[in-house]
């Protein structure tokens, strides 16, 4: 199986080296593609130093556009599996093989690395929990299948999903919407429990005002599926 990891990164010079290096350490056979989303710092240099292949976007596209670039690259270069890992070091690369395994065994087309399928050490604030809970119930209801961690950006996708996401991927806050989008197109999704670290550097981009926009945007995007 030809596997690649896509790491979207915007101004992650402090984390990206560690993220790429630890993926390489666990899985030297996997190609690591960092999509540098128009960073203003040394993200590109740091990623290359760690041995990643870097796609330098000339303009900032936001998380959706950056991740989609990874899927597009995966499709063009004939990868069987594309794995998505955040650039801030929250996701533990040791779980990659468990995600790939599910796809290899054809148990699902897309795998989500989830914090909540089993009790893990991850803790989050109460407001955050409320939002995560709401989307978990809402998505489960719309998809008629239980989903626990809809906001996780730790994912693996097979060819069918790579093809799907390279044609359409939401521009901002894409995680939740893509689950519903994929399910409605006959994609089988499975959640696998993973450990998540507290972010190692940088700040969460979600402010109170943004979280209101987040809730409204994502909810209406689910109600108004393309």
């Amino acid at each position, binding site marked *: 199986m030809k596997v690649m990891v896509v790491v979207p990164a915007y101004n992650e010079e402090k984390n990206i080296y560690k993220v790429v290096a630890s993926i390489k350490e666990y899985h030297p056979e996997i190609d690591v593609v960092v*999509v540098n989303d128009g960073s203003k710092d040394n993200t590109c240099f740091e990623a290359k130093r760690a041995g990643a*292949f*870097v796609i*330098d*976007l*000339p303009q900032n*596209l936001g998380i959706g556009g950056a991740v989609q*670039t990874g899927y*597009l690259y995966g499709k063009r270069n004939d990868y069987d599996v594309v794995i998505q890992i955040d650039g801030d070091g929250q996701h533990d690369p040791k779980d990659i093989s468990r995600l790939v395994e599910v796809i290899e065994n054809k148990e699902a087309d897309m795998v989500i690395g989830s914090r909540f399928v089993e009790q893990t050490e991850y803790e989050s604030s109460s407001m955050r929990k409320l939002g995560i809970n709401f989307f978990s119930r809402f998505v489960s209801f719309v998809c008629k299948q239980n989903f626990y961690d809809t906001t996780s950006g730790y994912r693996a996708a097979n060819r069918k999903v790579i093809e799907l996401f390279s044609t359409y991927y939401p521009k901002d806050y894409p995680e939740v919407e893509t689950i519903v989008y994929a399910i409605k197109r006959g994609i089988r999704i499975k959640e696998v429990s993973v450990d998540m670290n507290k972010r190692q550097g940088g700040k969460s981009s979600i402010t109170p005002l943004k979280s209101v926009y987040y809730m409204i945007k994502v909810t209406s995007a689910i109600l108004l599926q393309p």
Partner: protein
Amino acid sequence: MNAYIYCFILSLLFLAAALYFSKTRVLNFKYSVFWISISLILIMLSLNKRLTEKMAGLVNISYAPAFLFVTGIVFAFFLIFYLTITISSLQNKITKLVQEIGIIKSTKGNGDS
């Protein structure tokens, strides 16, 4: 100054601007045709008080300027809506281009920037 003359002068200025930007092709021609017709309609309305009153009467609005305001505002809404559709489509095109350029740059040479 008579209100209608005032409107007429404004419409005339508008027509001049529409013609100028069309002639220099700063404005795409498909929009030029639209704006030139709009300015001609404005000129007609400002010259012909009766026409405005008649149209207002058709929808039972006794105060003709109110009719113009309502029509104008609704029209402006539609126009802005259309513009946001155009912007969205441009945004999608730009996203595609940026992604392609990024991939091409990284595969050809080492992507210096």
